[in-house]
């Protein structure tokens, strides 16, 4: 006996949970199927950066609309998710870099985007007093901040269930086929049927796409993070670099999270990752050079999250190119956390009404499959 729903959402990361919540808010009945537990992977273990800064142009509309939601997140999900906004600062390590940043900011401004501001050495030092003296300036995105990734994902999950979504965990999707007007979703715990499917399966989304005859070149990556023991407060904004891999933030509890995207080795079928210590050593040296005060900080834990990376570094958001009623929302290429709340809203709009007011051009799966949707 098949269970039925209005929409089956595959994947319980921030994207799947956000979509499930927004579908439920529109009066639809989604069933979300998650193979481990909500937030188990990238969504629950990332650096928590809520960032508009330094995004690909195609992502910016989604990012802005998502930021609007972050600023009222407590109202939406009943939890402030640990969100604090002290801005993200992209630090220039040389005059050449700063010149490049100036060009980018000018270009954004021409396009009507004003969220990135160029800053000089004085403003940089004001925002990030602990940064090395030799940095000549940078870019700030003032609305940006950071949140607790696992708590956020769980909050979306919880609110989705409160609003009528069903969340089923520990269940894996094993097959997809047509059944009349519906999609038939085979899982390790039985059959589900729904007219609409959302593929938010993260690092496993290519398997879902393959079941639909639209294979995509998704790379499974596992960016690494480290966290220190508690330190007295010395930095407020999130700091990122361009020329070297670094993201750096201090949480309210005093611990410092160091990321940046150095990759470890993932084993996606066993949910395991093997860390690369030489790369983490490079991270450590980068932090050392930028923040001399961190020399004796203690690393208490290092880890990596399993995530999907697309060849062009931007996600797949939009209708399936082969299958009526199927939508994709994956491939966020290590920067999907901030986009979660907003993309879920946009996806729900698309699924429920057939279109969305937020521009998602350039994010469609057809850029990989080049198969026009059968009409």
């Amino acid at each position, binding site marked *: 006996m098949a269970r039925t729903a209005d929409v089956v959402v595959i994947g319980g990361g921030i994207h799947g949970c956000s979509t499930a919540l927004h579908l439920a808010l529109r009066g639809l009945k989604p069933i979300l199927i998650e193979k481990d537990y909500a937030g188990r992977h990238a969504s629950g273990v990332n650096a928590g950066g809520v960032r508009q800064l330094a995004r690909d142009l195609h992502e910016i509309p989604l990012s802005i609309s998502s930021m609007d939601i972050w600023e009222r997140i407590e109202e939406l999900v009943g939890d402030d998710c640990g969100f604090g906004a002290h801005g993200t600062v992209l630090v220039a390590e040389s005059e050449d870099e700063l010149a490049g940043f100036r060009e980018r900011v000018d270009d954004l401004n021409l396009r009507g985007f004003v969220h990135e501001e160029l800053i000089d050495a004085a403003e940089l030092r004001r925002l990030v007093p602990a940064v090395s003296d030799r940095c000549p300036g940078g870019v700030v995105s003032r609305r940006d901040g950071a949140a*607790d990734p696992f708590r956020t994902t769980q909050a979306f999950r919880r609110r989705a269930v409160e609003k009528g979504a069903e969340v089923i965990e520990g269940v894996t999707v094993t097959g997809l086929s047509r059944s009349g007007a519906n999609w038939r979703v085979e899982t390790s715990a039985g059959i589900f049927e729904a007219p609409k499917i959302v593929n938010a399966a993260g690092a496993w989304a290519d398997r879902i796409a393959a079941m639909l005859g639209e294979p995509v070149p998704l790379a499974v990556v596992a960016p690494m993070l480290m966290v220190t023991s508690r330190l007295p407060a010395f930095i407020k904004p999130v700091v990122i670099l361009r020329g070297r891999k670094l993201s750096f933030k201090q949480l309210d509890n005093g611990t410092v999270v160091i990321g940046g995207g150095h990759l470890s080795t993932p084993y996606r079928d066993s949910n395991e990752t093997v860390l690369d*210590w*030489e790369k983490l*050593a*490079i991270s*450590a040296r980068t932090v*050392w050079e930028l923040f001399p005060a961190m*020399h004796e900080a203690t*690393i*208490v834990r290092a880890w990596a999250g399993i995530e999907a990376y697309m060849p062009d570094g931007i996600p797949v958001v939009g209708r399936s190119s082969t299958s009526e009623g199927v939508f994709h929302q994956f491939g966020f290429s290590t920067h999907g956390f901030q986009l979660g709340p907003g993309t879920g809203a946009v996806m729900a709009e698309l699924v429920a009404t057939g279109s969305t007011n937020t521009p998602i051009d350039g994010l469609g799966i057809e850029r990989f499959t080049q198969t026009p949707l059968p009409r």
Partner: protein
Amino acid sequence: MIAAADLASSYELVVIGGGPAGLAAAALAARAGVSTVLFDENPGVGGQIYRAITSTPVKDRAILGQDYWEGAALADEAKASGALIVNGATVWSLDRQRLVGVSIGGKARVIEAGRVIIATGSQERPFPIPGWTLPGVMTAGAAQTALKAQGLVVDGRTVMAGSGPLLWLLAAQTLRAGGKIDAILDTTPRRNWLQAVVHLPDFALSPYFAKGLALLREVRARVPVHRVGTIEAVGTDRVREVVFSGSGGTRRLPVDLLLLHQGVVPNVNLANAAGVAHLWNDRQLCFVPVLDADFGSSVPGIAVAGDGAGIAGGTAAAERGRIAAIAAVCALRPDATLPDTQAIRQRLQREEMGRAFLDCLNRPADAFRLPAGDTIACRCEEVTARQVRETAQMGCEGPNQMKAFLRCGMGPCQGRLCGLTVTELIAAERKTTPDEVGYYRLRPPVKPITLAELASLPISEAERKAVER
């Protein structure tokens, strides 16, 4: 002193831990011709049971007892074998590729290993009573270490509490060394005897039977023993009193030092972080690695020997180390000459006989494993039992999700002193088993390293090029 820079980039066998299992394993493998390095974080070998065996200031052998001095032979054997023994070496990472991250003197290296034997032994089971975080409350093992390694004996008003052979051994050693113990609070539940007695015949045949009885007699002759159901350490800036209750009602004793002990459990952190599968052992009330007959784990090439494979004592540990080493040597050098495995296994079996009796007898009471109210469950992050229980009741299914909400397990000890408590509390609240609930998913570094240490890791040109944007 061997420095980090002196280490080769790879060894055929890396042994982690210099207690009986590690020493026996390293000695056997080195003698068989395998290039072997043993890393131990302490200034000298011996682990806990043979702590300071090469340097103890307690020269009168009668104080620590004959069992302790057996460790000297193991230390000598390892030293003479040709294995490279590195003290002051903290292993902070091990993975399925058998890369070993180690720090010596603040400098880090990553060493390749053909085979790894994890011999990191056991640690004391957490003993979460009200006030257990107060200065002046320590483990019995700590007092024993202070005695062995520094010749420090308890002085002043001292009370020992708990259950298990080590408690009685420490009491005897302390008395022999001229220390004074005001009382022993025995937390062994009466009904343990009923469950243990069925295993008594096996235990009666083991060497520990006679030794155990003698120790008990020695101590009971000089120290009042009270059977207790509750214990509380009371004080503000340090412990001032211990309050306890038993069939005789509630009593208080002034104390300067309260020593707690309710058995030992495997130190799982390195194995867990390396991906070794563990299962709940309900008889020993702890997580134990899943191992084959040669102590090989679920990760190919990584074995776990000694008490880390399940509590069985020091002599058994040495035999387990030898068996694991034989398997490693066979894999690395199939033509090597090896000692008779059969004889070693027989000796091991004899040591393990009687374990069932001790496990049943010393099974710690629920009250002392499952705290409530404001009693601290996670010492590092000061998370109370009430918080853990309430979060479990609200739907949190396991310790890894709970970590994210309460920060329990996220402090520097990485769950060593709260892991079992949190798992058992969640299981109790959610009416399921510790096996279902699982344990923290541990990640390296299993000992904190400074940014400076990590930055000191030699980086190859290839790696440097790989990360340029």
